[in-house]
């Protein structure tokens, strides 16, 4: 029984990291219908920036997270303006945008693994705070888990406030419903899109640092699998829907941890995609999504 609850905690931890990545996917898809393959690599960059901040710049933990978030935001906005925006302007078919995203992803991964940049080897991640474990009702809770929960919670609350209670959030929602009309309403759609990329990157960057703290080995290709799974989580919850991404992430996190713990750890990757297939076959619009009809 204890083992079960212990895994529950682990699942919650993993789910939190996935949530931070997944939100970026879902927001970007919601706004420009792009599956941003490069998003997982922003997450990877976030982990590396955090690493750099803690080990070289000797930042404390919170400052490192903020540092990482800011850098990721800047990079993602640059990518958007240089690679995606010109294509959107030209009205190319969506496949081209997707391929560009794939190109960006490959570029980030391979550039980072060049020896003069970060190098291809696994880097052990520092833990710049004392790890205390508590015993609570027979469970062992580590301060890492608490920190992950708290930071994720804070970021989610900030995002929620931003989306639901500010004018900018309203603009974001408007653009994701109907870009043309939003444009006619005087919303600067390009800026909103850049902002969405920035927000998604910030969350992913934070997620990267947290991931590094929890599973302390990073490498340039670390973003691929978590990125894919976070994407699956977004689809599970309903792609384009923020609450869906969060719920989906926790479900995927839980299922993955439980599969590894109770079935076999070799199947932990496959289980997320098995869930994906089941969702797509039974309820493709996701848990919170609405069915789309054909307009004839």
């Amino acid at each position, binding site marked *: 029984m204890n083992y079960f609850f212990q895994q529950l905690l682990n699942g919650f931890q993993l789910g939190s990291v996935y949530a931070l990545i997944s939100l970026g996917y879902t927001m970007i898809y919601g706004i420009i*219908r792009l*599956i941003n393959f490069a998003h997982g690599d922003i997450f990877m960059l976030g982990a590396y920036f955090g690493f750099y901040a803690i080990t070289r710049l000797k930042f404390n933990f919170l400052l490192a997270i903020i540092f990482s978030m800011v850098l990721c935001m800047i990079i993602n906005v640059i990518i958007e303006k240089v*690679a995606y925006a*010109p*294509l959107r302007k*030209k009205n*190319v*078919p969506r*496949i*081209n945008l997707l*391929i*560009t995203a*794939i*190109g*960006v*992803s*490959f*570029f980030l991964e*391979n*550039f980072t*693994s*060049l*020896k003069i940049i970060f190098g291809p080897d696994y880097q052990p991640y520092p833990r710049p705070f004392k790890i205390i474990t508590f015993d609570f009702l027979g469970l062992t809770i580590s301060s890492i888990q608490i920190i992950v929960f708290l930071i994720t919670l804070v970021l989610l609350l900030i995002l929620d406030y931003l989306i639901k209670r500010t004018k900018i959030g309203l603009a974001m929602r408007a653009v994701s419903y109907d870009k043309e009309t939003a444009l006619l309403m005087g919303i600067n759609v390009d800026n909103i899109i850049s902002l969405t990329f920035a927000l998604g990157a910030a969350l992913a960057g934070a997620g990267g640092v947290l991931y590094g703290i929890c599973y302390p080995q990073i490498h340039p290709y670390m973003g691929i699998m978590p990125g*894919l799974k976070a*994407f*699956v989580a977004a*689809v599970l919850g309903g*792609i384009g829907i923020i609450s869906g991404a969060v719920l989906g992430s926790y479900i995927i996190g839980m299922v993955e941890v439980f599969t590894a713990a109770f079935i076999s750890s*070799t*199947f932990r*990757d*496959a289980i997320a*995609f*098995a869930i*994906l*297939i089941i969702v*797509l*076959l039974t309820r*493709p619009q996701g848990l919170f999504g609405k069915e*789309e009809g*054909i307009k*004839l």
Partner: protein
Amino acid sequence: MINLYIIQIFSYACCITISALGLNLIYGYTGLFSLGHAAFMGIGAYLSALLTKSFSHYGYFIYIGAIISSVIFTFLISYLIAIPILKLKSDYLGIATLGFGIIVKVLLDNSDKVFSQMGGSRGMLGIPNFTNLPIVLFSLILIILIMRNLIYSKFGRNLIAIREDENAAYAMGINVYKQRLLAFALGCSFAGFSGALYAHLYCFLHPSNFDFLRSIDLMLIIVLGGLGSMSGTIIASFLWVFILEGLRIILPQAILDWRLVIYPLLLILLMLLRPQGIFGNKEILWLKKEY
């Protein structure tokens, strides 16, 4: 020695072209966004290798049998998978096929628990080297012929109609769903064919040869060549194989890793400058015909 090496690369390029043509049939001509194509190559490769290794005393005959079995098996399995999956909309179809590809890879990684010969994540060794240049060239020409004749007939027209406007296609008496199933299964069987050839070319298989990154490579090739253009796919496949290999030879050791940085940058540039790919949807020479 150099000649043998070039021949092997050329043969590899032929295999990739066969697979890419299959994907072009599925996506370029029918409009089905499939991101799991390499998985079907893997299924064909591993099945054929298993057969030739298990029945190696039959020599050449088992090779032919293995190839035929791979083609039929990938056709059937992709048809079955497609039945539920093709009911999904484009983006979701891509995601589902991606997921399928990953599941296949995980199954292949664990294959040694069922058939120890398959080697699991250690890879499968000792596959007899039956594939040679004449065989692979013959296969490529065969596939090109089949595809060309199919496209410029009733069936190709059905697929193009479906790609252009699904509802108009229904309104013209086309059984959209069934045609999609057939196109998908046929395209995947090309992949299975190519996998079987590949297995007996390099004589070593590893699940990572057929993971989703490889599926993405195939997608890149057909977009770069031009969707809905056979000529484009053929040329793009060869260019892609030879340029990547070529860079590996030309670049000095010190900056070898840069080829993996340059390649995506070129990709992005190409998307910006020529999004319709090299050929767009045009054909050249004998591949060009009226519908």
